């Protein structure tokens, strides 16, 4: 019995060792581990530039050399994004591995043409991370891909930190690829994507060539294509209405001085109500505040709370006016809100959704509660 078991075990181990070479595979060093992809559209052709992990390619001495950007770039052109990716892959001589793509940057023109056609390659690839980020570039995306940051293990990390930090502070909307795929299944196929801008004044110490990247508002997407850029104020408002902002700082004028207040635990609730033929969105928000600088001794807290509330209302109102009421876009996903709150109402208005949105009204009610103590006290 023991002899038989021994023979069986030997057979299994031998098969495992001998047959492992029979399975077609690509070694890790033969792959281009793509970290970021930039897609441009010009003369009815797509141009793809991607950054891939390669520590030794840029002179790194160790597998992960923190003093180096650790990435190389490769570009390709084609009738569609797949073809362009393939050409870029041929040029770098490696097989693409898209499982760790952190960000897709879409050129301004490509976004106007169609964001769907760009993201399609990622949506149909099951390797891709559904939580990678999508951003639009002001100008050509290719230029942004050439910026290689020294900070972080790889160059892309810095870009991700930049966007994550801006979102955490309520400064920008930051939808993931999955958020975008979900958007494509809604009536308006609408979302707001962050816009990245190249700063090429040679003064930045973030990269070797003095270039850096900044966030510059957002791009409003409707029916899967960009309608144009919106200001940072609008993106802040969208982020608030979307319910993704939990912390935000505001600066309000009090007598002759400006007082900065940190608003935290921001909660926004939207309730849709039909009043006659008009759909009214009652937006209720609440948050707590904390002075970032010492308030004056004779400080009137009620007045400051009111001023903070007005600031938040201004942000949300601007966002609603510039996107929903002006363009009939739905970057806040009001469709979801209406369906969730009143399904019968949704069934009544779904066929006329865009018109209903344009003719809708927003009412705001914000409650801010500020601690009387400042951080300095």
């Amino acid at each position, binding site marked *: 019995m023991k002899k038989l078991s021994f023979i069986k075990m030997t057979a299994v181990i031998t098969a495992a060792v001998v047959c492992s070479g029979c*399975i*077609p*595979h*690509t070694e890790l060093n033969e792959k281009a581990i793509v970290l970021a992809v930039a897609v441009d559209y010009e003369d009815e052709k797509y141009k793809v530039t991607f950054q891939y992990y390669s520590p030794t390619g840029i002179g790194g001495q160790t597998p992960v050399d923190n003093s180096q950007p650790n990435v190389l770039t490769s570009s390709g052109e084609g009738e569609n994004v797949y073809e362009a990716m393939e050409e870029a892959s041929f040029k770098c001589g490696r097989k693409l591995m898209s499982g760790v793509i952190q960000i897709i940057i879409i050129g301004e023109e490509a976004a106007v043409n169609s964001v769907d056609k760009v993201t399609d390659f990622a949506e149909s690839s*099951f*390797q891709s*991370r*559904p*939580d990678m980020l999508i951003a639009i570039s002001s100008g050509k995306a290719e230029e942004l891909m050439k910026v290689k940051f020294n900070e972080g293990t790889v160059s892309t990390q810095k870009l991700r930190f930049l966007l994550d930090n801006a979102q955490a502070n309520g400064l920008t909307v930051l939808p993931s690829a*999955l958020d975008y*795929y*979900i958007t*494509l*299944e*809604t009536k308006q196929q609408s979302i707001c994507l962050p816009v990245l801008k190249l700063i090429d004044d040679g003064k930045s110490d973030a990269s070797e060539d003095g270039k850096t990247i900044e966030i510059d508002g957002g791009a409003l997407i409707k029916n899967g294509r960009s309608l144009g850029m919106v200001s940072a104020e609008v993106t802040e408002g969208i982020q608030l209405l979307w319910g993704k902002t939990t912390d935000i700082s505001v600066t309000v004028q009090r007598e002759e001085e400006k007082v900065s207040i940190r608003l935290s635990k921001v909660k926004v609730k939207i309730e849709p109500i039909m009043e006659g033929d008009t759909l009214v969105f009652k937006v209720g928000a609440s948050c707590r505040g904390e002075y970032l600088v010492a308030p004056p001794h004779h400080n009137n807290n009620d007045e400051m709370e009111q001023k903070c509330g007005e600031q938040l209302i201004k942000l949300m109102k601007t966002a609603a006016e510039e996107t929903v009421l002006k363009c009939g876009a739905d970057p806040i*996903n009001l469709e*979801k*809100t209406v*369906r*969730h709150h009143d*399904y019968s109402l*949704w069934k009544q208005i779904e066929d006329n959704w865009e018109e209903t949105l344009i003719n809708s009204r927003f009412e705001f009610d914000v409650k801010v509660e500020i601690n009387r103590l400042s951080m300095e006290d």
Partner: protein
Amino acid sequence: MTKTKISTAQLAVLLAASRLFTEATEFTGRSYSMQHFTVILVSCLILTALYIPLIAASRKYGDSAFGVIASKSRTAGFLCGAVITVILLSAAVSSVCRMTFYTSATVFSEAPTILLAALPLAVCGYAAAKGIQGLARGSVIIAGLFIAFLVFIGISLSGRYDTGWLYPAVIEQPDLFWEQVIRHVGRNSELLVFGVLSGFAGEKADRAAYFYIPAVFLLSELMLLAETLSLGPFLGTAAFPFFTISAMSDIVLFQRLDGIDAVMWTLMLIVRVSVIFVCVKTVFGRIFGEKAANPAAWLSALAAAAVALTVDGNIGLSVIIDRALVLILPAAGLLLPITALIVGRKGKREVKNSEKA
């Protein structure tokens, strides 16, 4: 009567694992609709009704429905055995094709489909040849891992759930509703599995159904809830919704869980297909004697492998088989215990007559 080999809990776990695999690899006909929650509820109620005759036969004779038929009438046993074997092996081929399609499209894109189909089938053949006891013990471990996997996904996605995707609607499209219910009920090959294997769980095998149906109902609803809260309307277009939410999970130790998702469903496939092979083995054993049992298990593995490899794990074949089985499976699940009750009564009468004579 069959000798008791496994507990009712083990039988319940075998049935649940087999059913959940089918549930999770339903790649077609999905949509973002609250109706699906009702579909699961109604189909579980219908399923409970379908189990009543099987439970009645099991309680009356203390053996499985097929066991009763095979012991009372060789001809009926042979016919029933042939029908059960064909239906269950078709379901096994469908499952293997689904899994091959899933794994080759996701994590093992470079692996040849021949290996993705042949390797699990070889494991299943071996598991079936080893017998139901080992398989039952193994499936309890796999079920434990599966529950842990669900808990991991549940925790890691908790920050991403959006309850806004839920809306108050029970039945949105009545025509589609009944079509979905029929399709849901029609994929329960476990009806036949219970009709063949319940004898191994002894006289109280009916308890397995009492545990299994609520467990499958609860887990199916929870999985659908996790998918709906994470994916919203994308649920209708995502080819593999559970894989997508696994890829979104971000757990410190494992990072994304999509690789583990593929491993989990491969294990569940092994349980499901092994259970089917054990059924075929039992059918052959009851008709042709115990000596025919093990070769039958290997032969069924070979037959399933031959079909799956011929079509190269084509998902199209799986869709055709599932469509064909939609009405056949529940009908067979209903006819099997009825036949057992008729044959059993006839057998009793014959015994009484012979005693009188």
